[in-house]
Structure formats: C-alpha cells, structure tokens
C-alpha cells in the first residue's frame, strides 16, 4: 500500500487485488486465523473432554507423595515423604548428569577420532573409519540395548565381585567405591583449590603479556599445575588430612555403603558417547579439511614446526567450521538421553513422563512440562555454544 502511494510517479497504480504485497498479507492473515482457530479448538476440546470425563487436571499433583522408589538420586529422596515434584527434580538432575558427562566425553572421543581419521598411518585412519561407519549406521536404541546387555553379561555376579584397589568392587550391580566424607577443615582445601585456580589464571595472563613485550617464554604448564594441584594438596596435609572414607562392604544380597556407579548409567553413557562421538568425528574431520592446505604451507614457510602449526594455525581456523554442527550434536546427545528408560536409568523421561504420568494420569501437564524442560536445556546449550562461536568467529578488521 505504502509502495503504491510512494512510488506513484514511477509505477502504474494497481488495484489492491492485483498487488502482490496486499495479496500475500491477506493470505498470511488467513493462515494465521486458521491455525489460531485450530489451536483454540483443540485446547478447548481437550479441556471440555477432560471435564466431562472428570479426569483430574492442573498441577495439584505436584505436592502429593510420590510413593515409588528411584534407583539413583543425586538429591535426598525417599519414597515415604518425597513428592512428585521432588521426583521431577531427581529425574531432571539425572538427565543433566548423563548429558553433561556425555558431552565432555563425546567431544574428546570425537576430536581424537577425527584427527585419527586424517592420519597418514593406514591402521589408525582405518580404525577411525570403521568406527564411524559402523556406529553411525546403527540405530541408537539397538546400541544402548547391546551395551546394557553386554555390560551386564560381562561383569561378574554379585557373589564373585571383582576386588579393585582402594577398597572398590565391581560386579553386575555396578562399581562400588569408597565415599569420601568431608570432615571439618576440608573447606580450607576447597578454598585453596579455587585460590590456586585464580592464581593460575593471573600467572598465565602475566606470562602472555611478558612474552608479547619481551619475547621471553615462561614455564606456564608447570607453574599452573603446581598452583592448581600442589596448593590444595599442601593445605590438605597441613590441616591434618580432614577426609574420611565410607568403604563399601558385602551384605547378604548386595554391597552396601560407599558410592555406586550403576550399570544402567554406564550403559547409557557409553552408548551415547560412542554414538555421538562418531558424528563428532566427522564434524571434526570436515572442519580440519576445510582449512586450505595453503595455510599449512605458509606456516611451514614461516618456520613453524608441525605440532605448532596444528595448534596455532589449523585448529583455530577449523573450530569456526566445527562449532555450529558440534552444537547440534550436543543437542542430539541431550535429547537422545531420553532413551534411558529402555536400560532402566531413571532420567527425566523415565521417572516423570513414565511413572509420574502413569500414577497421576495427567498426560497433558506432565508431557507439557517435560517438553518445556528439554526445550530449555536445548536452548540453553545452543545459547552457550553461539556465544562461544561468536568469540571464535573471524574478526574482520
């Protein structure tokens, strides 16, 4: 419309019916109306049906006693007093745990395999290639079931637990380790660790500025290691080792006491890391190949050695290509963790959309909340990765 009046001199006046802008606006408005009407009808219908069939709705169930047991809880939870709301948090934390550890390990595996894939050594690149081709082309659920059953079958039964150093045991029920229990005074050790971390950061900054000014290098790695590891150890010894261990011991059926890493968790973690690692391998390989060979040649011409060339020239440029597809692999890993129910790991989908949904029967609320949670986790992850990407992106001068 505005165009019609503004450009009256140069363009012939057309009727609104034939004006493409008006037409597209009308069609879009109609589409929005139709979709809005459909959504409204669906919601209205659902509400009416629920009311007519007298199915409970709303979030009143949130504070009711859950009454079922969960095998792995990162926060205190007991079936006697805890509510459905607490069961939700237990499930959410279990999801976040497996996703966070999985992302770190899958990245490591993917980078190692991605570099190995490009190795000149046929054996190394062959192994990486077979790994990618096999793992990437099998459904994840199948792999999870395989790992779970393989893990269970391979481990010794609980009666012939395998003894490990430091009073640990390994059997079909998991890996049992002594649980450290902090005594008064342990806070100093934690404080020393953070102080060491801060000191290491400041030292690295000082060393970089010194190198830029004078060209002299400082032993960064050793000094930082001493600050981050050495300082807390010194404080630990100085305060009289304020840490005790709760050792696992064999009971009638199970091993009790200590900490336990359950086979369900291991199977899920293993499956997710191996599966996602294969995709990250290809992302990394593509990223490295995207850096033109001229860069390497130029670097050699400047006299840089091969490992410095990789570290200072190739990787920073490859990262720009790697990060965006890497983000979607992280999102995939997090979302795929909802297959946990098939190997009995109590993640959010298992505990909340499984048991809680079934006990309360409130599908709409429970599934809605779960979708919202996965959406939030995914959006959070991609925001973080986008920020990292913008830092690594080419700065045009």
């Amino acid at each position, binding site marked *: 419309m505005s165009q019609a009046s503004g450009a009256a001199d140069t363009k012939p006046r057309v009727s609104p019916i034939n004006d493409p802008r008006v037409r597209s606006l009308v069609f879009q408005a109609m589409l929005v109306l139709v979709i809005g009407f459909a959504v409204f009808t669906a919601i209205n219908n659902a509400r009416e049906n629920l009311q007519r069939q*007298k199915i409970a709705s709303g979030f009143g169930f949130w504070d009711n006693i859950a009454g079922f047991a969960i095998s792995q809880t990162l926060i205190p939870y007991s079936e006697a007093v805890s509510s459905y709301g607490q069961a939700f948090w237990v499930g959410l934390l279990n999801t976040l745990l497996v996703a966070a550890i999985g992302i770190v390990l899958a990245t490591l595996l993917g980078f190692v395999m991605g570099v190995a894939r490009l190795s000149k050594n046929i054996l190394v690149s062959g192994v990486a290639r077979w790994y990618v081709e096999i793992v990437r082309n099998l459904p994840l659920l199948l792999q999870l079931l395989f790992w779970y059953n393989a893990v269970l079958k391979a481990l010794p039964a609980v009666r012939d637990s395998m003894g490990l150093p430091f009073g640990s045991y390994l059997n079909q029920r998991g890996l049992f380790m002594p649980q450290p229990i902090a005594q008064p005074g342990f806070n100093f050790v934690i404080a020393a660790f953070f102080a060491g971390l801060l000191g290491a950061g400041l030292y690295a900054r000082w060393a970089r500025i010194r190198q830029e000014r004078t060209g002299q290098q400082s032993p960064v790695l050793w000094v930082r290691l001493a600050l981050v590891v050495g300082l807390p150890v010194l404080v630990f010894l100085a305060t009289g080792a304020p840490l005790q261990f709760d050792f696992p011991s064999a009971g009638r059926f199970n091993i009790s006491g200590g900490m336990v890493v359950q086979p369900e968790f291991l199977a899920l973690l293993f499956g997710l890391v191996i599966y996602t690692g294969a995709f990250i391998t290809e992302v990394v390989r593509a990223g490295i190949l995207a850096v033109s060979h001229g860069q390497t040649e130029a670097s050699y011409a400047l006299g840089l050695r091969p490992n410095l060339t990789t570290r200072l020239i190739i990787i920073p440029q490859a990262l720009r290509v790697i990060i965006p597809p890497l983000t979607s692999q992280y999102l995939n890993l997090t979302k795929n963790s909802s297959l946990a129910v098939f190997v009995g790991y109590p993640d959010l989908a298992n505990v909340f959309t499984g048991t809680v949904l079934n006990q309360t029967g409130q599908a709409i609320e429970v599934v809605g909340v779960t979708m919202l949670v996965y959406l939030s986790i995914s959006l959070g992850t991609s925001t973080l990765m986008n920020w990292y990407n913008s830092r690594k992106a080419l700065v045009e001068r």
Partner: protein
Amino acid sequence: MKKILVSAAAGALAALVSSVASAGTLDTVKQKGFVQCGANTGLAGFGQPDAQGNWTGLDVDTCRAIAAAIFNDPTKIKFTPLSAKDRFTALQSGEVDVLVRNTTWTISRDTSLGLNFTGVNYYDGQGFMVRKSLKVASALELGGASVCVQQGTTTELNLADYFRANKLELKSVTFATSDETLKAYEAGRCDAFTTDASGLYSERLRLSKPDEHMVLPEIISKEPLGPSVRHGDDQWFDIVKWTLYAQLTAEELGVTQANVDQMMKSENPDVKRLLGTEGKFGEAMGLPNDWGYRIIKHVGNYGEMFERTVGQGSPLKIARGLNALWTKGGLQYAPPIR
C-alpha cells in the same frame, strides 16, 4: 473460492478433534463393525498373540465376549497391544473402546484417571520370584536386595510400601516393558523379580531355566484385575459389566458352551432370563435380548474361560483359588439377572 476451501478445512479439523466425544461408544462400535480392545503386549494366560497373530488369554476372551454380545461374532474385534505405561492414555483418548489388560482396580484410577472399572475378571495379588540358589524362604528376608520391577504399575508402589512397612532396605530398578524387566532379572541385575502372582507363574516359564527360580509364598497386596471403560458413557459401562456377569451367572447355573443350545429349552426361569428367552434385559442395554446366549455360545462361561486360558487346560495350571464362584468358597459373585 479459496476462503471456502480454507473454512471447509478448518471445519473438518474441528470435526476431527471433537469426533472422540460426540457419539456413544456402542453406536461407534456398531458403525465401525468391531470392538477395539486394549490388550497386553504379551502375558501368557491373559493376553498374548501367537505366531499367526491369534490372541489367546483370559483378558482377550473377556473382550471377545463383548464382541459376541454385540455382533454375535467373537472375531469382530481388534486388539491394541499396550504397555503398562501407555494403557490409560490409550483408553482416555478413545484409541481403544475397552481396556482389558490385567489392570488393577484402585480408587485413583477409578476417579481421577477418568476410568470406570466394570468388575473383576481375576483376583490377583503381588508376589516375588527369586533364584533358588539365594536360599531365601520369605519376602521378609529380602532386606537390601535389588528388585526388578515394571514401570507404571501398582506393583511399583506396593513394592515401596511393603519394604517400608517392614523396615527393609529396597534397591529397585525400573524398566519400561516387562521384557526388559525380566531380561535384567535373568542377567543377574536383581535378586528378585516382582509382579502379580499370576504374572510370576507365566513369566517364570519364559526364563531359560525355570527350575532354578521359585515364587515366594508372600502375597503382599490385593490386585483385583478387571476391564475398564471411559467415564461418561453409562450404556457402554453396563454392557461391559454385564457381559462378565453373564459368564459368571452361566457357570453358576451350569450353562456351558456345549449345552447352551439345549438350555434354550430349559424351564428354569434364571436360565431363561440369562439366555433371553424370557424378559427384555438386552434391550435395556441397546443389545438384542439373546445377548447372554451369544456370549456363552461363542466364548463359554467364566469357568470354561478360566480353565482354558490360565487353569488346568493351560500350561500355567493356576488353581481357581479366590477366583472360584462364591458358592465354592471363592470371591466371584454376580448380581442377579432379573
């Protein structure tokens, strides 16, 4: 023209969304020509398809009796295999007309889930299975044991209750399907496997060495299993309810699949009312008056159905026990047909 198309599409969509609600279930069933029955994904004796896709079991036959009453043909039925976790949503959303899937009748399911239980076709209770090598004689000795359990069942809650009430430490591992649960137990992940006692007997037969496992004597809960329908359709509720009662009444009166044709000539007024030669009880439910005859002719009475699927005529060989008629010391009791 475009506008008409669009509004037609919107109207069709709205109709689609609301179609679940409008007609009565009986009319819908008659219109489509079969009963859609929610069944177990595979529990021997209750609901299980064989290699040819033929379903057998007590729950399955309970469903067939409904189809026989409506269509005079027990094959006019389709089964939807449902996991414990998905079964209620399937019934609530109208995906199935009736749910007969060894489902325990509890107050919360009867009220806030929007379900109506029509009766009890099997009185059950929860038990435990363990390895004989554990040398456990009672469930009370299971303190500290790992227990494999299927998700979304009353079993899961009873288990936690029982261990808590007896001050035993519980380590439960929860799986989505009964297959995964049993597999984990067999692999040695758990010391004990728990489900309804009837289920224990049938799942035990699926283990590679059934003789190495035993069922503990304790029954830790009441599990009345029965068919359920959606809230808000009393006619359909009545049909499902009285189908089971007709089978119980037939057993009580000695009417069987074999002698039902002779019984049509019976002078016993109770038999006449059951088989529809006297009174118009079918009409009141929207069914023909010979609905009782149809059920017995095609599916048999409750006792025949029981023995064929879970009793002496089946590999499970479960005794009638609580499921005997009230006249024989059991709990099965039907209100009079009159």
